[in-house]
């Protein structure tokens, strides 16, 4: 169901990767979040692969016996269920002058941690990270989100070094405690 590759990779403690690879991946994630914080959306979009799946399933409250069904699956409704093409539309919106949910723009900061790297092969690298997203906007709106991100990165010959093929965002909130999700995770 929910990301079998990742489940298998984290069944037991993953083997530590080289410091160099770990460093490379972390720097990529920091760079990516910096682009979002600095509202350099076009450049951020450049980090997304054309076969992208950007997905945030819905989490709900379940009793322990049924906790495996906490998240909606791939056939279920999701907060985000985007491909490269629809993400391009979102970038078009956020960069327009008339996207009121981000004009005036939110101030969004990302704290990325708990980065665990599990290479599938030379070119494909699975990464799990935790992200704290801190958003303020307008006079006094404050939203805080915590999530786990499961990324599939692909090595590419660009300055950034990787592209994001798949991002699964496992958000901690069941009821989203904000008026909208007008930014990226």
């Amino acid at each position, binding site marked *: 169901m929910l990301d079998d590759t990742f489940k298998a990779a984290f069944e037991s403690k993953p083997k530590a990767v080289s410091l160099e690879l770990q460093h490379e991946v972390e720097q990529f994630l920091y760079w990516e979040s910096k682009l979002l914080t600095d509202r350099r959306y076009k450049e951020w979009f450049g980090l997304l692969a054309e076969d992208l799946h950007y997905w*945030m*399933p*819905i989490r*709900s*409250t*379940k*009793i322990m016996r*049924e906790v495996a*069904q906490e998240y*909606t*699956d791939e*056939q*279920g*409704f*999701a*907060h*985000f*269920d*985007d*491909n490269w093409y*629809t993400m*391009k*539309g*979102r970038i*078009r*919106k*956020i960069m*327009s002058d*008339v*996207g*009121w*949910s*981000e004009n005036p723009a939110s101030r969004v900061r990302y704290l990325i941690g708990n980065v665990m790297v599990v290479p599938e092969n030379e070119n494909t690298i699975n990464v799990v990270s935790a992200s704290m997203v801190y958003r303020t906007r*307008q*006079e*006094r*709106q*404050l939203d805080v989100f915590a999530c786990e991100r499961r990324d599939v990165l692909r090595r590419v010959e660009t300055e950034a070094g990787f592209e994001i093929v798949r991002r699964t965002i496992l958000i901690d909130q*069941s*009821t*989203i*405690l*904000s*008026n*909208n*999700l*007008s930014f990226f995770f």
Partner: protein
Amino acid sequence: MNVKANVGATGAYSDAEILAMIDEKNGKFDPKIYVDESLYRLELERIFARTWVCMGHESHIPNSGDFTTAYIGEDPVVVVRQKDASIRVFLNQCQHRGMRICRADSGNAKAFTCTYHGWAYNQGGDLVSAPMEKEAFGGCLNKAEWGPKQARVETYKGLIFANWDADAPGLDEYLGDVKFYMDIMLDRCEAGTEAIPGIQKWVIPCNWKFAAEQFASDAYHAGTTSHLSGIMAGVPEDVDITQVAPPTDGLNVHMENGHGCGLFLRNPMFYMTIVGPKVTEYLTTGPAYEEAVRRLGQGRADVNLCHTNVFPNLSFLAGINTVRMWQPRGPNEIEVWTFTLVDKTAPQEIKDEWRRHTSRTFSAGGVFEQDDGENWCDIQQVLQGHVAQNQKFNIEMGSHTVTADNPEGFPGLSFAYTYSEESARGLYRYWTQIMTAPDWDAIRRIDQRPLAAE
């Protein structure tokens, strides 16, 4: 969340004062209906505890013992599929000391046990046992008397409704003309609809009536500034945005019992920007469209988007098929609960596209809905001001176009041009009437004839 409690609210209002809150003749209304705490408490009593409120879709709970938790206003309820396939809805409150009986959003249960002292309930919410019953109660606990309050339950083409009031009319009569418009979404094909699994929930710090009114009546915001960027996000890059003409062929419809809708006719291009080319094609050509023509007639099959509010708080967009319940949380806040319906017999590829596009457009992160949330919370915040609360809002749009005869032959009390507020005027007038009616006998006597069409 940045809207604080409405500390400046005044006390209760007289019936005459409530009835005067909408002044249709002069196209004005009083924004205190959005912020006043005493009016809000009265809404919970006189609207939510007496009308038919949507609980979700039957396909959310297909099997015996499947349940979801839901709300009627601020009252939590449990919605459970029974062994005989019927549905029960009961107050999620143990009558011993008031604990929540069911604490999950959904699941499957053979029984429910209160976590406080262990009173146990069957799937229907009947109290079946209490721990140490003999010793502690001397065998005289009348279990039949101490189950949680049960609501009346009825369904309409898959949607589940509940009502606390024994004197209310049946669901069919209550819905009345709005069924005709609900069918555009619910009855396109023989098999009906099913829900995509999962209910999305989020919080908007605004009054529930902003959302209800927008879906009942406000095509204006979609055709003007609110959703320009949402349209942009769905238009192919090579298409010039100025070439996407806002729909102008359509109707604004006010119905009895506070229901309202607006619809666009013969403009599939608007669909295209929201549900994408594949679903647009499915809806407007080929065998599924032909079946819709047979079942609904040409007129309704060519409705390209129908935004509707079923009074009080169930809204949907027929065609896009996003369904939502605006759950009131005080005068200054709502939870939006939303899900997507698809034709049961649609090809899997179409169902997938439908699901992806409603999530992309009408959800917390939706390229359309993001901006509604933005507008409503700013309005609500401004209304915390004393002077702001004491202004009047303009609600005169389209009064000059109102007629009792619908050129399309569709049902309703009054009709107006696409960009009109006839349905909003109807909604607020009904709101003042039901808020001042002591019981269903009085509600039945409400004169619902639209003022402008007289």
